[in-house]
């Protein structure tokens, strides 16, 4: 029994999940390749959020700000200045990290709900700037002309010719998200991540034993903002456009829900949550216009029956099964 558990932990999940996900273009329709791209990007976005939520114990409402900044930086550089995709993508992440540093400096000085509200104010300010700065950001209409990056390799993929473009972009996006998630995993499991955990568990005690709580929270904030920026850059390309909504606080609420749905105490919780929520959303909206109601009910059920999220619930179930076996 104990061997199986450590085996569970020893599996290189990032690699396994990525390889599994990479098979999608070979058997799925274009619609599902499209959906899989969406899931991959939001998996990265949600995992970046969880660095703050599950690992450090901070609840930011305004994580969308860095997502939006990354999207605009990457999209505008590609569209207006013809910057190559990978460079623009990295710069988007750096843009997110930069603003996370600026906003984070003020936010980490606050705690709990005040922290949350200040992050929200920051996101709304970013949104308002994107909404109004017509000359640069296209204002309320955004910038709907982000070009599809030229991917010179992968033309040999044995997929349906109509799906080739989408499949190529999907695999590139998947690879980039996988790398991002892998890096986040290493960070979470590193000594730095342990320090963040101790801050989450008891900030006072951490401060007492000499950890500069604020400084570490800021570092986490910056890293999370950077990866959110990377996810944003990919999202802008995926949507072929960047719009102020990307920075609106409700985008951050989406990933908060995904993380909680999947389970914030597990590294893969946000990824699972993203996949489940997006698939569920896609399935439900074809049948009813009352998706918010359905989501609300799901959240209530989640709250009362599976407070640890899906992975938390699975873990409890597993333990119970093990206990009987």
């Amino acid at each position: 029994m104990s061997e199986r558990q450590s085996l569970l932990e020893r599996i290189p999940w990032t690699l396994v999940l990525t390889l599994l996900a990479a098979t999608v273009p070979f058997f799925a329709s274009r619609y599902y390749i499209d959906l899989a791209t969406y899931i991959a990007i939001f998996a990265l976005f949600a995992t970046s959020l969880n660095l703050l939520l599950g690992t450090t114990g901070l609840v930011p409402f305004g994580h969308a700000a860095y997502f939006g900044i990354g999207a605009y930086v990457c999209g505008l550089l590609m569209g207006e200045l013809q910057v190559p995709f990978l460079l623009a993508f990295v710069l988007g992440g750096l843009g997110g990290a930069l603003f996370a540093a600026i906003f984070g400096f003020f936010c980490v000085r606050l705690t709990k709900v005040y922290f949350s509200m200040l992050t929200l104010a920051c996101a709304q300010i970013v949104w308002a700037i994107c909404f109004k700065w017509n000359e640069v950001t296209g204002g309320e209409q955004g910038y709907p002309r982000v070009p599809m990056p030229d991917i010179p390799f992968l033309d040999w993929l044995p997929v349906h010719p109509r799906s080739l473009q989408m499949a190529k972009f999907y695999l590139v996006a998947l690879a980039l998200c996988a790398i991002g998630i892998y890096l986040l995993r290493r960070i979470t499991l590193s000594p730095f991540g342990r320090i963040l955990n101790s801050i989450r568990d008891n900030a006072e005690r951490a401060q007492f034993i000499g950890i500069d709580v604020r400084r570490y929270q800021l570092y986490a904030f910056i890293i999370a903002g950077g990866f959110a920026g990377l996810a944003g850059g990919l999202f802008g390309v995926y949507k072929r456009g960047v719009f102020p909504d990307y920075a609106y606080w409700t985008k951050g609420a989406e990933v908060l829900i995904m993380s909680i749905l999947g389970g914030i105490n597990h590294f893969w919780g946000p990824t699972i949550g993203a996949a489940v929520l997006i698939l569920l959303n896609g399935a439900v909206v074809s049948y009813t216009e009352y998706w918010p109601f359905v989501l609300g009910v799901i959240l209530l059920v989640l709250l009362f029956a599976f407070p640890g999220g899906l992975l938390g619930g699975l873990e409890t179930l597993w333990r119970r099964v093990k206990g009987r076996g």
Partner: protein
Amino acid sequence: MKVTRRVALALPVAVCALSGAAFAQGGPIKVGVPLPLSGPAALYGEPALKGAQMFVQELNAAGGVLGRKIELVVRDSKATPDEAVRVSREMILKENVDFLVGTLTSAEGPAVSTIAKENKIVLIAPIPKTDQLVAPKNLHPYIFRTASNTTIEGRTGAEIIAKWADVKRVATIAHDYAYGQDVTKEFIAHIKKLRPDIEVVDSQWPKLGEADYTPFINAQMSKKPDAIFSAMWGGHFVTWAKQAKPLGMFDAVKNRVVNGGEAGSVEATRAMGPEYPFGIIANAYDLPTYKGQPQSHKDYIARLKAFTKEDPPSSWPIMMYVAMQFLTEGIKKAGSTDSDKVSAALKGLTIDTPFGKQTIRAKDQQADRGEFYGVMEKGPDGIAFMKDAEYIDPKPFMD
């Protein structure tokens, strides 16, 4: 039912996709309709959808087009470009729609236009007014617009105000976003050209979704304008007018207010009832009756009343109705549902709409669509209606 139909369609679609041809013999022509069906913009989105539904019902009863029926695939775009793109992609990739007819706001239009271009699906936008949609740098073969645009609207407002010889001070109020900014810019540029003696004394920029307009109203009144050009629309117009009337704004300018944004539509007059600021000039895309109304329009209104069971009927269904007319006439002329052929057929196409001939110009794929303007008077039932409505021909205002 849905599953088997989808399977039945998937096979011929797959075959055709491989062979390059883009029609499924015998199956319905699927038209994707992204429109806001929730939130404040649903005020226009829902009635617009009914126009499409009525057209499809009539057309299918008459045998459809090219022997095939039309099937509408409807999705809520929530009036945001983000969601509009998402549902449009879903309709193209999952539902395999052949065409897109929809989008309402000026942000949705250009966003979905990019998707249409990429997937080579013809998009006819029946309502977005932004000039950006068909501007030269954004124009491509698969985007067409059958609505009016901000240039026409701003300039028409200027023409009306310029006719009031005793007006020397003019103020504007519009939401601080693309539509409001563009229409105000066109208004100011044109009125300065027509009447160099007019001074624009004030411009107010409330944010979209402002709950309390009173600071803006008050600030504008303090500048003592003789006339006001307003771009308030939909639910926002209702809120603004409800707050402006008790403050005496309309009295102060003697009702010399020209309001774009279809504030003369049935939705606005019905929502406000007796609180409507009677005496202002507003516009609307459609009216139940007007001077010189052709028989075809009378018939259309009668059918619309029966279909929607509303009296007076809304002015928004006509937008989707005419857009669907253009689409099906384009398909007929092209003799196929191939996007490139339909696109070529639509350029320069003139059709008979219920209110007369309308043409999609070949040079910018924009229709010559004007609106009705007139003074909003109090009707016998206490609801405002447009008196002496005049259809203002947009051609003099189009570049």
